[in-house]
């Protein structure tokens, strides 16, 4: 071994997965071999947005040579869902969006399956659709889920049966009632901004589309290979819904070609398992085309947000009256918790004495709105962070100063009644102001161009049940190299690398001695991990890894102490060697971590193969009052940050060029500073891209832009020339070495930062995403004759 990195925590050691990925050796699901018995599945999607299913006739499909089976919801109507079981695996009596799974065809080749899927005849009786969440929440809107009151639901989600509201979170703080903030409070405000902001649904667009392979053996053993952020959650959901003993349900998940939340929870996987059940013993593979990925997997929810916010003449925020209507799409089994998260964090990172917040998840006849990087926070910050600028302007204050004055600080009693944990948001604001040259105006590169700067801040807590657990195992080899077993998924964020760093640090061995045995994650052999979501791995999985390493370390010290006749408290492990501070003796870890050590005079042996195990689960999150959202501890913690943007806009074309993005986030402790920077950079461009993205539907609910030609992702030419990042480190009380997560936060407030910079450049406000060139152009040429002069 060439290099030896001692105490790797805090050092930018190389990624453990990079070599495999640059050589093409890294295996993803579609790279795995399944042998000659492999069959292929194709999902039959609904072509209509809302309808009753009158009849399904699969006879023509079944008659096609090479077709092995067709499964439908009629075969076994089975409800599925993470927080709210509201979704049939295959549509049962009705369809609720264009793209819904109606049937599954299994055949000997992908081509035959595709051909057969077109032969499945489905008779529909159309129902009136609902597309707008605000309209859909009204009592007289067409009902999408008449059985909402019968669905199984967790105890912290509150559906309103008889309406399209699958979750209603209420936040009441200070002088407010269900009718709103007290008039006396509004009367104290020097200025009030009341406005509506909206965002369309957007797609995660991982470069690897959803893919799953399933095999249902005649002995009842079921295996699923999936590109998944949630192998254990999927195992649990499949076992529950399909009545499979957990021990018989095995989920295997190798590397994932991007997730961003889209591969969290469960999507097509159950459909594939039911296909496999129809052809016992055969593996069945389903890979989504890019078009299917757009319409028939998860997307980010849309939002209609209504804000009324006021402050006094000195710029102190006094009141917020907020109503968030999330367009949850056809099924809200995961989406209900996004509306809840947006509810308990509805103020954004601000200390406000009077808050009335209502956050609704609303069924619509659009694709399934589900987890996406930021989980409700990019959506609510879009309007919030622009209104803060408008309030500041109205009372003649600098927007950054206004935000700094009102932002949450450690010890504040925040909106839910919880005490704000240790974070330093003012420092983040100061850092980005400095990096972007706040207050200084740059000259545009041409007369028809305008320059502008904007700033936005954010907060986000991991949004999850109160008790999601992590576990880890460490196991030594004869040469004292160590295998670390975890089930956090390496989705690009660097989870394996930080797991290796933490294990090495806690044990006292060089980083280069650690191997991460988590590819693939296999629920049959890997330790439990709830899901790779919520920016929780560095913190939660990290705590489990640290505990496992400390468990192993304790065993080693006990053996050596006994061997030397010393007290374990006097011993330490440094660079792979046990040392005694008392006797100054040394004992290499090599061999002894497997074979143990002999007693004196060869009278027997002691020790044995060292295996350490560790777990972590937060135990302190409390329930919240369903009428007020008040409780002692709503969430585990918050990560905060600030971002500032410098851009140039072309008034002749409406095109925006983001020149620089400066970010600062309080990550507690950067376990690997360069990997934090790669999140900050990648997130900034993801956030930038999201400001220009939108799924556009026709009046029948059909997606009009399901391809990368019509749905543009940021390319290498769109990425800013400069992305500056600052890491703030205010340690988290229960974080490993003080660390908290940062994976999602880095894109939360980019869109409003761009909008604020756009206002700075043009003096025009944009309330509705995306920021298309057409929209910008029309706004800057309002009232002009725009007919073609050519």
């Amino acid at each position, binding site marked *: 071994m060439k290099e030896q990195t001692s105490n790797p925590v805090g050092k930018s050691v190389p*990624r453990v*997965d990079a070599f495999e990925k640059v050589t093409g050796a890294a295996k993803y699901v579609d790279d795995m071999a399944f042998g000659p018995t492999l069959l292929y599945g194709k999902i039959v999607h609904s072509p209509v947005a809302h309808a009753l299913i009158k009849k399904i006739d699969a006879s023509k499909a079944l008659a096609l040579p090479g077709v092995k089976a067709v499964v439908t919801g009629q075969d076994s109507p089975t409800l599925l869902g993470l927080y709210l079981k509201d979704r049939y695996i295959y549509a049962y009596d009705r369809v609720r969006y264009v793209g819904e799974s109606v049937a599954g065809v299994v055949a000997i080749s992908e081509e035959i399956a595709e051909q057969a899927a077109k032969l499945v005849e489905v008779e529909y009786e159309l129902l009136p659709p609902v597309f707008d969440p605000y309209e859909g929440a009204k009592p007289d809107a067409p009902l999408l889920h008449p059985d909402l009151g019968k669905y199984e639901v967790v105890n912290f989600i509150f559906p309103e049966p008889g309406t399209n509201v699958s979750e209603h979170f209420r936040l009441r703080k200070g002088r407010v009632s269900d009718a709103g903030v007290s008039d006396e409070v509004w009367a104290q405000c020097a200025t009030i901004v009341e406005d509506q902001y909206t965002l369309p649904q957007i797609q995660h667009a991982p*470069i690897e*589309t959803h893919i799953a392979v399933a095999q249902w053996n005649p002995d009842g053993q079921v295996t699923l290979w999936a590109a998944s952020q949630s192998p254990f959650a999927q195992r649990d959901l499949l076992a529950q819904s399909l009545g499979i003993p957990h021990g018989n349900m095995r989920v295997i998940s190798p590397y994932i070609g991007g*997730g961003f939340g889209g591969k969290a929870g469960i999507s097509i996987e159950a459909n594939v398992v039911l296909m496999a059940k129809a052809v016992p013993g055969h593996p069945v593979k389903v890979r989504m085309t890019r078009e299917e990925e757009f319409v028939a997997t998860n997307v980010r929810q849309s939002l209609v947000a209504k804000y009324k916010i006021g402050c006094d003449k000195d710029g102190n925020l006094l009141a917020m009256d907020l109503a968030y209507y999330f367009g949850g799409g056809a099924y809200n089994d995961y989406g209900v918790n996004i509306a809840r998260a947006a509810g308990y964090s509805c103020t954004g990172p601000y200390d406000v004495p009077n808050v009335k917040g209502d956050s609704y998840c609303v069924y619509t006849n659009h694709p399934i709105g589900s987890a996406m990087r930021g989980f409700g926070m990019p959506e609510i910050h879009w309007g919030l962070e622009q209104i803060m600028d408008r309030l500041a302007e109205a009372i003649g204050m600098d927007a950054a100063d206004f935000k700094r004055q009102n932002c949450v600080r450690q010890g504040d009693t925040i909106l839910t009644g919880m005490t704000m944990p240790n974070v330093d948001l003012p420092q983040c604001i100061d850092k980005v102001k400095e990096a972007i040259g706040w207050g200084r105006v740059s000259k545009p590169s041409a007369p028809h161009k305008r320059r502008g700067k904007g700033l936005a801040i954010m907060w986000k807590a991991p949004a999850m049940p109160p008790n999601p657990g992590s576990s880890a195992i460490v196991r030594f080899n004869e040469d004292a190299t160590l295998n670390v077993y975890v089930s956090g998924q390496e989705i*690009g964020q660097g989870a394996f690398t930080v797991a290796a760093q933490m294990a090495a640090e806690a044990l006292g061995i060089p980083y280069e001695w650690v191997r991460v045995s988590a590819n693939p994650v296999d629920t049959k052999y890997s330790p439990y991990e709830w899901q790779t979501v919520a920016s929780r791995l560095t913190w939660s999985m990290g705590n489990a890894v640290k505990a496992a390493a400390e468990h192993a370390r304790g065993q080693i010290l006990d053996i050596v102490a006994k061997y030397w006749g010393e007290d374990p408290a006097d011993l330490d492990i440094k660079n792979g060697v046990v040392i005694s501070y008392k006797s100054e003796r040394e004992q290499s870890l090599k061999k002894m971590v497997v074979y143990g050590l002999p007693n004196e005079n060869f009278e027997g042996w002691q020790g044995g193969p060292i295996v350490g195990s560790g777990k972590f689960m937060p135990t302190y999150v409390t329930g919240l009052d369903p009428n007020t959202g008040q409780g002692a501890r709503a969430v585990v913690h918050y990560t905060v940050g600030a971002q500032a943007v410098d851009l140039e806009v072309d008034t002749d074309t409406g095109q925006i060029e983001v020149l620089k993005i400066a970010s600062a986030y309080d990550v507690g402790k950067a376990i690997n500073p360069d990997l934090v920077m790669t999140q900050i950079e990648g997130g900034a461009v993801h956030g930038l891209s999201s400001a220009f993205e939108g799924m556009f539907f026709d009046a029948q609910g059909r997606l009009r832009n399901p391809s990368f030609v019509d749905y543009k992702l940021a390319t290498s030419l769109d990425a800013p020339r400069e*992305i500056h990042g600052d890491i703030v480190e205010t340690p988290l009380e229960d974080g490993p070495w003080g660390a908290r997560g940062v994976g999602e936060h880095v894109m939360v407030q980019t869109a409003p930062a761009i909008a604020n910079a756009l206002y700075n450049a043009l003096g025009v406000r944009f309330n509705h995403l995306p920021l298309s060139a057409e929209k910008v152009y029309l706004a800057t040429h309002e009232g002009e004759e725009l007919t073609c002069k050519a």
Partner: protein
Amino acid sequence: MLHEMSLNINGETYPVVVKSHDTLVRVLREQLGLTGTKVGCGNGECGACTVLFDGAPVNSCMVLAVEAQGHRIETVEGLSQGGDLHPLQKAFVEHNAVQCGFCTSGMLMSAKALLERNSHPTEQEVREALVGNLCRCTGYIRIVDAVLDVAEAGS
């Protein structure tokens, strides 16, 4: 219709039997086990399947396998020689230009093609050469820097 032919991939000759409509990427991945080349869209829009066709970058999902006969095909598996990483692979590792890894093979191949036709590209030229390769993770900055680094080292 089946075609019996041979493909020249990374300097090796592979006899194959392909259908008329088989794409090059399908034959690479499913017949020859060269799974380093990825499929992200199947429509020539994302660049994940980029390979070199007589030195020029192509989306191998848009090329029929039969068209590749008699041409020199290079894939990510051919980049490292004799156990040593190609300078671009090294630079991608050193710059942390890799996250989920799904676009990486295509990025490397597009970058290789660029440096072979222009050994000293400007930053703008690098960005233009990679515009057909979508990456959702990295924000491109590290990738561009890695390519520029290799260009400078080769001067």
